[in-house]
């Protein structure tokens, strides 16, 4: 069961009577959660991408303008690229497309298919003629989370991240309290320490004690 932005704000406000809606309106909390959610998802994507749902985007081949490449939807991580052979209409048939570091594109000498990513575009190797054997390209990405613009919005994180988000929001609010001239007795350092500990515990659990996954991008030494 997913949790919402309102769940996080409620849990954070329960951390201290100083975190009042009058001094710290919901909209400010939502903006922080948008920023923090993207940062935390980025770390998860880096450490254990399989913990996050993939967004699948398909692009028909041939491309309209081969040299313009394939636009990648707004993402945190490009997990994989694959192509469907023309001869096999079976939807499950895919040929993995190796993703190479952009710097390797001119030195790559092995057989097709491969591609490089530059910015928000994936460029296929060779020329359009090299891809005539394929009719579809499939991109699997971890999508960039949308802006959390209201309390009903679902936070795109695993359920057990509720406490982490609440602790981090609490630390953010504590730093705001400390800046107020008549601020209550709240220790921003203690709040941030608690939040960082919660985040570390969560990431440890999620990533099996910090052992990261190895993903697709492969360097080629030749």
């Amino acid at each position, binding site marked *: 069961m997913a949790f919402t932005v309102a769940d996080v704000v409620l849990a954070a406000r329960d951390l201290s009577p100083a975190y009042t809606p009058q001094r710290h309106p919901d909209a400010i909390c*939502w903006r922080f959660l948008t920023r923090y959610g993207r940062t935390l998802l980025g770390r998860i994507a880096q450490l254990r991408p399989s913990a996050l749902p993939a967004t699948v985007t398909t692009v028909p081949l041939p491309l309209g303008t081969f040299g313009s490449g394939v636009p990648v939807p707004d993402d945190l991580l490009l997990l994989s690229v694959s192509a469907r052979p023309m001869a096999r209409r079976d939807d499950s048939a895919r040929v993995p497309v190796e993703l190479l570091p952009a710097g390797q594109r001119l030195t790559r000498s092995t057989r097709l298919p491969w591609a490089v990513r530059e910015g928000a575009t994936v460029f296929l190797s060779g020329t359009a003629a090299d891809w005539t054997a394929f009719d579809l390209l499939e991109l699997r990405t971890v999508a960039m989370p949308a802006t959390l613009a209201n309390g009903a919005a679902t936070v795109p994180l695993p359920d057990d991240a509720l406490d982490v988000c609440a602790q981090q929001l609490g630390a953010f609010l504590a730093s705001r309290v400390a800046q107020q001239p008549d601020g209550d007795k709240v220790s921003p350092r203690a709040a941030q320490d608690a939040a960082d500990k919660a985040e570390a515990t969560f990431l440890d659990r999620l990533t099996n004690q910090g052992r990261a996954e190895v993903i697709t991008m492969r360097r080629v030494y030749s």
Partner: protein
Amino acid sequence: MAASVQAIVDAGFGLSRYSRPELIPAQSAALTQVCNRTQVTLFQFAARVNPLYFSDQVDVALTSGAWSRPTNAEAVFRLEGRGAATTPNITGEVLVVPYDDRAALVGQPAVYRLGTRFFSAGNTGDPTAGELRIFYARRPAPLSTFASLTDAAFPDEFLPIFHYEIAAFNARADGGRDGELQEMVAERNRHIALFEQFLEHETLNETRRFGELRRFPVEQRAPLKALVQAGG
């Protein structure tokens, strides 16, 4: 139970053996104004100490592009949407943002204030039409004649504030009456202190998630005894 201005004046004149009740008809306008100013002062003080005590709520429709502040509002402390009666449909609080930072809380329904009116803050989701419910600490209806009654919500046990204010007014008009003015003011101040305490403690069992109700940027306020007419 409300008291009439007549009853207050009678009680006030009865506090001193130097009083001259035969002057009441000639002084009726001035005495009524003393009662009125005293009541207004007490309500204004209450709005800063305990805004909820003399409070009210009213549904205000959009007129000429804005929602007007209630004419008897001493202190507005909350605005809410009225569900389907508000455009767009808003059921929770509508925040008041500064006129020069209207995008401060984008995502939460907000208005800004200018003059005595509230205008839509202009962001997506902000109210644009329909009604808003305004919660406010109110002013009392004016006491304009001897038949006028004090506000029904004003506790009778604090009517001596009015009585001693009338007595002090009379003593001052008579040149102080050899120290009687100070005695009347002192007694009035004792009742004022009781009223202040009442406002502070009248409801003790409100349970809040947040420790205290802070509605003012400063914690200072003028003592009530310095605000009423006879000084003190």
